């Protein structure tokens, strides 16, 4: 009987421990909410396979550069609306400065349509694939498209663009990140 009681107490303690661990490891609201309040926060880790070709890209490897991080899906209508503007901005900034780069994060998408999207909208900057959208909670992405600006020190700076980004918004974001 005493052994049974010990097993029951042990089980309850183990479940409590699991609950505490889960609460301690929850992601919170993500950086988007903080950036929307005007805060500058360290960029979450980004280490994902390339959408085209092989190998991975880490955000850390781009330290020292301003990075425009654009989350998108091939089936998303506003993504299609902004795609040419984002691609044009990447080409224009790429021609002007080598310390401004664009990274597309394609999430929860089929590879075929995603690659066709890049071709159709003339996207030439690096794109990575986040098959299950596992990066979304940390970045605070709630839908697509969303665009973040990471400064040269690896921090996410305002503005954060939720929804279709215009060329003017992108340019403004990059300028602010360069000044940060």
């Amino acid at each position, binding site marked *: 009987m005493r052994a049974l009681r010990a097993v029951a107490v042990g089980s309850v303690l183990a479940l409590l421990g699991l609950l505490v661990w889960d609460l301690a490891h929850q992601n919170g609201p993500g950086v988007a909410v903080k950036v929307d309040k005007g805060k500058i926060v360290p960029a979450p880790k980004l280490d994902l396979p390339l959408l085209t070709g092989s190998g991975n890209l880490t955000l850390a490897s781009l330290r020292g550069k301003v990075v425009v991080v654009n989350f998108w899906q091939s*089936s998303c209508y506003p993504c299609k609306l902004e795609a040419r503007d984002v691609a044009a901005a990447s080409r224009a900034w790429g021609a002007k400065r080598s310390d401004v780069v664009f990274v597309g994060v394609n999430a*929860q*998408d*089929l*590879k*075929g349509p995603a690659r066709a999207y890049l071709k159709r909208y003339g996207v030439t900057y690096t794109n990575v694939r986040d*098959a*299950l*959208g596992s990066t979304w909670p940390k970045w605070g992405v709630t839908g697509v498209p969303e665009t973040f600006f990471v400064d040269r020190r690896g921090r996410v700076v305002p503005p954060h663009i939720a929804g279709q980004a215009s060329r003017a918004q992108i340019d403004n974001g990059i300028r602010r990140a360069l000044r940060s």
Partner: protein
Amino acid sequence: MRLAVAAVAALVLAAPATACTPRASQAYLETRLVCIQCHTTLDESNSTFAVEMKTEIARQIKACRTNQQIIDSMVGQFGPAVLSTPQTHGFDLIAWVLPIGGILLGAAGLGFGAWRWRTVRAPASIDSIDTFLDAEDERRVDEELKKFDA
């Protein structure tokens, strides 16, 4: 001329022969795979992405791929999370073993509990009790019983 006609006829007749017979079932695959965006099986979802996945499955069926090949290609793209049921090997095996093990363990626990309850609570037979009453009480009971016999 006759040769050209024969060649065209051969091509026309050969076309159906080269087209494959589909070896996979769209309906089956839609129950085995989950829409990654809406987290329901494909047959229960009509979201844009679910429709895209269904189209991709249809394309692969048309290309004569088997059920398993199509499932493997989806797992290759999204990992095991795209499956509607856990796999029967590796870590996912726990999802199958744990409930069955839990039921067996629970049944064993109940059986053991019932057995113990019966053992502890079973009334002892009168014969097995050596001293049911002390001597004085026994004498008084005998006396009373004798009154009935008389």
